[in-house]
């Protein structure tokens, strides 16, 4: 029973980190209709920048502030140079972001090398939790993720830019007719998506690894969360990410973890069969 609770709890913690990253993917899709194949690489850039900040300043905590800002700037630049020219062409967006993914990976490989590295967690202590020696940093990472998600929803619902983002997402033509600067909203949205993935990278780097392919494996899980949550449904994405990881954690305590992974994929298939627009389809844009 202890193992069930421990792995369930670990699933929630991991799910919250994934939710932070997947949320960026969801807003980019929800507003811009861009299927962003490079989103995992935005996460990877976050892990590499976190490592770089630690190497140059010796202070890991700085990365929590600096990296999202760099991510935001990079996101704005990419939206302006890569996404804008192919807007309104969903098929092209897949090709363009796939190319972007390769460029980001190879740039990091060329600059920092191909060998993976490790970031020592800024909090190194562990606590005995339901039979496991559990890292305190993981609990901290979950708290940071919750805080970032809350701040994001606060921004979306309490600020003028947030209101514009929702308006453009709901009806871009009318929003433009009402004087909302849709062009600027697109840039800010994409930049926020990048910044959130980069922050996810900072949070997750001490748990996983820093390497040029770190984003490749995280992307499918993010897509699963976005699809099960309902395409473009932000609250649904968060809930689905946490539920998926929790479900996989519980399954892993009873079965082989590989079976647990297969189980979560089966769950996604069932959801797509029963509710093709996702579990939280009612709230979809």
């Amino acid at each position: 029973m202890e193992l069930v609770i421990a792995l369930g709890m670990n699933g929630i913690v991991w799910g919250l980190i994934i939710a932070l990253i997947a949320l960026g993917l969801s807003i980019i899709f929800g507003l811009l209709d861009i299927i962003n194949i490079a989103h995992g690489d935005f996460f990877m850039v976050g892990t590499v920048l976190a490592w770089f900040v630690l190497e140059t300043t010796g202070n890991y905590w700085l990365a929590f502030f600096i990296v999202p800002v760099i991510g935001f700037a990079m996101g704005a630049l990419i939206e302006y140079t890569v996404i804008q020219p192919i807007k309104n062409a969903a098929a092209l967006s897949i090709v363009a972001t796939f190319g972007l993914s390769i460029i980001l990976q190879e740039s990091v490989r060329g600059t920092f090398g191909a060998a993976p590295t490790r970031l020592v967690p800024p909090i190194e202590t562990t606590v005995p939790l339901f039979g496991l020696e559990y890292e305190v940093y993981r609990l901290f990472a979950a708290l940071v993720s919750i805080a970032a998600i809350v701040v994001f929803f606060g921004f979306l619902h309490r600020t003028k830019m947030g209101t514009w983002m929702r308006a453009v997402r709901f009806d871009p033509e009318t929003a433009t007719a009402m004087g909302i600067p849709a062009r600027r909203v697109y840039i800010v949205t994409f930049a926020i998506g990048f910044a959130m993935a980069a922050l996810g990278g900072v949070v997750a780097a001490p748990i996983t690894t820093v390497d040029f392919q770190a984003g490749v494996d995280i992307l499918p899980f993010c897509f699963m969360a976005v699809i099960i949550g309902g395409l473009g449904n932000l609250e649904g994405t968060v809930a689905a990410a946490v539920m998926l990881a929790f479900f996989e954690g519980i399954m892993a305590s009873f079965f082989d973890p590989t079976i647990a992974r297969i189980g979560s994929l089966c769950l996604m298939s069932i959801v797509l069969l029963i509710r093709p627009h996702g579990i939280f389809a009612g709230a979809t844009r």
Partner: protein
Amino acid sequence: MTKDAKTTKRQTAGPKTAERGQTRRSFLQTALAGGAAATTAYLGITHDAFSKESGPIVIGHQCELTGGFSSWGYWHDKCAKAAVKLINEGGGIAGRKLEMAVEDTESNPAAGARKLRSLIQRRKASFIVGSVHSGIMLASIPIATELKIPYFSAGEATEATGSKGTRYSFRTGSDTYALAAAGVPWAMENLGKNWTMIFPDYAWGHSHHEEHRKLIEAAGGKVNDPIAVPLGTKDLVPYLARIPEETEVLFSVFFGALSVAFYTQQKSMRLDEKMKMYSVSGTIEAIDPRDIGGATEGVYFLENFPRPLEFKNDEYHKQFNELMEIDHVYAKEKGSNRVMAKSHAWQSYENFFALKAAIEASGWQRKKDTPGVIEALEGLEMENSLAHPQGAKVLRAEDHSGMIDCYMSRVEDSKFVLKKRIPRAELEAKLPPRYDFRTYKL
């Protein structure tokens, strides 16, 4: 052709014309046409032989320059280039220049197999120094065999010189069969008898598990249920949580990012305080223990080539390190952060010299002579030298497997410290050949 025929026909049309029209012009026309035809025919027949006998010998290098194995691939490429340079400076192979054709496998079996065909069919490679990626090498052996080209594997899955091996597949390095035989006796005696194995869910990991399990159980040890981790897993806690409490030895086999993730997460769960950690060199290849914050401290690794010079302290090892531009302790490249994938990459260097020896011994001139090279490779003895800095070895005739010295080391203060050298003679005694490829037709 038609013109020549007409000319011939005209000339033989009637004696009258021949007698009358034999002018200087007609004589020259006939002579030139005949000469051209003869030259064309001669070149057509002998083109292949002529160009092969005096032109360069092309050896293909199937290498992981990009993708997940690129931190290893960089070194395989560097080793291959160094070998080619040395061979050409020494007069080439049998007086012919050695030319290397390189293709990037992208660390992907499908791409690797496609690139192998390209090396052989488009770039005309006569021999292949192959991949270190077990999936790629296993996908490549049937192709090399079909095209009758000798192929050197550098990966560890035993199948390459076992159940999926052929007369054309060779490996100078060790496989999972040899690594298990080299490491298990010492580890059983010094680390413990209750084992749990955790490995990536693909050929290499399963191969290690199977070979180790047999030996541990035969020696009276207990092997708990294996834990196979899907490739690309980020959070290993669900897998690490399943390791039984009674485990004395945790045997792990990972590579690259998954390896770092494993050591990072096991360290944070303090597993290394409860059990001995043991692994093979592939898990720590191209990684400097100093770069992963002490996560591998105290871990035992079975190496194929000791990382510090002092544990195989000879002139050839030293010269090889200098060729690779690495330091003598951490095997780190001068002027960069790269750490040499030393336990594997030497094969991409030595295999060129093994091929040179076999080509010269067999008198190979062209593709039809390839069976002679294969026969020369079977049982090839290699002396400790600059051509074979890893040490003296033999390419066993029966199963085409390299018999080499292995080294049991432990990470102490981020350095590899030798605990036991396992000489190849000891291994040969424990590893009877399970296949005899000499019975396969060439």
